[in-house]
């Protein structure tokens, strides 16, 4: 089983600590990187592309974030999509249970799925296997 890279984009510090632990426990990913908002994440992605670094396999994206929220990040992705050499598997992981957010996610072709918090190890396994 190949090693996978996962990015977590969320402004909740506590959540980031928790998800790191969960990811570690799942032992599916060998590298976890966290970002506090969409802006940080997209900038890192652009840098990685230009440096031809290994890109993350899975991105867990929160919606509500300051500076650049999840939707802002998705817009940026759509702009640079052609320059991304591999397929990015982006999951929304949000505490929101608003139906609009779910619909919006579903209608975005670059978003693979919507996960409501809390995220469990089983969830992670499922998305890893799906790939």
């Amino acid at each position, binding site marked *: 089983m190949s090693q996978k890279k996962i990015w977590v984009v969320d402004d909740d510090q506590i959540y980031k600590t928790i998800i790191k632990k969960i990811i570690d426990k799942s032992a599916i990913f060998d590298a976890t990187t966290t970002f506090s908002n969409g802006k940080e994440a997209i900038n890192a992605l652009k840098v990685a592309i230009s440096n031809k670094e290994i890109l993350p396999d899975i991105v867990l994206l929160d919606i509500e974030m300051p500076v650049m929220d999840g939707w802002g990040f998705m817009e940026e992705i759509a702009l640079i999509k052609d320059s991304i050499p591999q397929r990015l598997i982006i999951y929304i992981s949000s505490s929101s249970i608003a139906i609009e957010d779910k619909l919006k996610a579903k209608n975005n072709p670059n978003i693979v799925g919507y996960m409501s*918090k809390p995220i469990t190890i089983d969830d992670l396994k499922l998305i890893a296997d799906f790939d």
Partner: protein
Amino acid sequence: MKLKTNWPKFINWYIINPKLTGLIVFIFLGIIFSLLASKQYVSNIEFKRLEKINTLETIHQNIEQSLKNSYITALTLALTINDEGTPENFEEIGQKLLKSNSAISAVQLVPQGIIKYTYPLKGNEAAMNLNIFKANHTKIDALKSMKYDRMYFSGPLNLKQGGKAIIGRLPVYIKQKFWGFSAVIIKFDKFLDASGVNSIGKNKYEFQLAKRNTTTGKTEFFLKQTTQLTNLNFVKKSVTDGNWDIYIIDKNANSLLISYITNTMLGLILALVFGILTVLLLKKSTQLQVLVNKQALSLKDNEIKFKTIFDQASVGIANVELKSGKLIEVNNYFCKMLGYTEKEMKLKTFQSITHPDDLIEDVRNAKNLNEGKIDEYSMEKRYFSKQGRIVWGNLSVTPLLNQNKKQISVIGIVENITIKKENEELIVKNENHFKSLFYDSPIPLREEDFSEVKKALIKLKLINRDPEEVKQFLHSNPKITNELHLLIKSINVNKACLELYKVKNEDELSNVKKHLFNSKSFDDFVDQIVAICQEETSLILDTVIQDSNNHNRNINLRWNVIRGYEKTLERVIVYNEDITERKDADKIIRNSQEKIQSLIDTVDGIVWECNPETFAFTFVSKKVEEILGYSAQEWLSSPTFWSDHIYAEDKESIIDFCQFKTAKREDHDFEYRMIAKDNTVVWLRDIVTVVSENDKIIKLRGIMIDITKTKEVEKHLKSSFDLVSEQNKRLLNFSYIVSHNLRSHTSNISSLTDLIQCSETTEEKDELIDLLKLVSNALNDTLYNLNEVVNIQTNLNLVVEKLKLKPYLDNTLTILRNEIRTNNIIINSNITEKTEIHYNPAYLESILYNMISNAVRYCDKNRQCEVDILYSCEDGKRYLSISDNGIGIDLKRNGDKIFGMYKTFTDNVDSKGIGLFITKNQIEAMGGTITIESTLGKGTTFKIQLT
């Protein structure tokens, strides 16, 4: 023969020229009479001349005699002088001499030129001792007598002693020696008497004595003279002893000339009279001659004319031998009329060319004429042409008599009346046609004679009178009007007319029609008479008649005078169309119209009709006044009234909509506002039907319903709805907040408890429990904040106080003074001590703090930061605006979230996303609003409506 013709010609010439002849006679006689007059004149002149000479001669002799006597006297006196030169017995002899010669008034002896002796001395004393050689007037004459040595008479001259006299002086010589003069003084008047001058015809002649003045050379005349001397009117002779000339002057020298002229004139007049008489005489005969010539000419002309008429006449003329019927002579027209040549015609008889139906009558007439029973005859008959056609002719036959009044043949004149006959037939046909049209016409028709009516009107002097006067006259004299009505004579009526009156025949009709049965028919008849008086020839009116069953019928009466009878009105066609049914139908229509009208008026809406292109209204129901305040008249007075009064905001869209729908021929239903007369806005619902006819839109029809109340209710409903929606939105927002903010914590808690459960080491567990503590604190905070928001929203009894704004602002700035100082921010404010508002003090504090701290927090560190806090009043509302020149917010992206809970837009660690959320809730709880304007990188302005 030639002479014979020439002679009368010559005479003719005189006769033809009577004026010339008269002139010749006049000249001839004039010359003769003038010659005679001249001759008489010449002989008269001669006679007169001889008479004058004789008279002159007599006078001359008398004068000579008188002078001779004077000479003798002077000589006798001289003989008194003795040789010594002294006179002897002068007195005695002087006396004797004076006695013997009465003409002498005095004698003198003048020795040596000096008057020494005078007899009688008495009266002559003045001349005594006068030296005549010295006196001027005597000197020349005295010397003259001495020179010629004979007695010389001087004078006549004025004497010193008075009177006029002639002085004769005889030079006396004694012994060859001049002694002096012997002088005789002759009184001039006596001298003249002696000369016999006074005995000449004083009327005819005048006598004159003259002397040539030797010194001046002028002729001196001594007697008063009345007649001017001319070359011819006098004779003269010289008297040498006195050096005198004596004249006999013809007083009436011109009388001869006058009589000569008179005679000549008389002669000329006489000649003229003769001349004129000659002219008159000759003229008469000339006129006669001319008359004869004229008549001869006209006779000849007539002959030519007759010939021409005969040949060229546009009637056929034939000379027919009556017994045989042979055509002796025929003219061109006759030949042409029947298509024969003249030669062919002459071989025919009149019988052979006459139609057999007319022949019997023709022959009978001819026979009667021949027998002298009739003088002439004329008839219309038919001829056969050469081609066998029938030619109609109007034949007039008159006998041709010879000089003995015996009939030799007849003259027939035939007028071609074929066309006339054809026309007559056509007329008869037309007449029949017309008659059948008239009788069978479905419209009741009458032919009437109004001539008696017109005559009566003329008699009443109503023709061409003022219509009003006529009307008044007829109304005030109903009897006359009725009589006029009875004067209408019926000529014809058709079947339909009889049916209309429900009568069997004309007589019954006239009975029914006899009376003007009511005021309506009376008025209508008066109108008819007024029209006739105005000489109108046609008239249309609706009137009422009564049929035989006494039923009233409404009729449309058309009264038309037949052409050609406009003056007399002898023939008039009267159309009587029964319009009773039509009237009834009209009434039904009118009733239903009224019904519709009242329906329209009762409908609770404005019923209208308008032009589909211009939207110009053609009808609008009365209701408009009730709903909009405008009268229907006002509305219809302007073609753009509707569009002019649509509420400005709605106008364009409404008109576009109507045009669009009309073009698609779709009925439409829409709502808009109009401005009523009292300037209020009225909401209308307009339901429009597009009315088409023959595939063409002819009008729009619709109804406008006042929906203002509905609209108000709707508005109220909408605001309630908005409120509810807002509440709902807030609730939803709250639920989101709850779901998001609480869920993020609960999910964290859930994850943490999971992790704790499966933690392997104690350190790990402790670490997780610490995390759990953090989450629980955060959850606590969130719950606190939510409680705060719920408090704001549910606090219905907020305390509102009158507050001074300035101290609250200052207080806020004091709290934030460290941040302000650190960032070197300039605060600008227009708020003074006087600025007061009504607000909840805690909210005001909270709002000011949140707004200003936000402005400070998001300042742009790269430039001088400024925050403006401005208070203003607009439209009675108070506003507080807080502007900064800070980093700004991307409203396009975040506009909808800006006032949300836990919405943060920067990576600022202090951002909690709760301030604006609370602020908004507080402002709205106070009944105000908050709006934001922001440009990224330029700054942000929050505008708070306080009340």
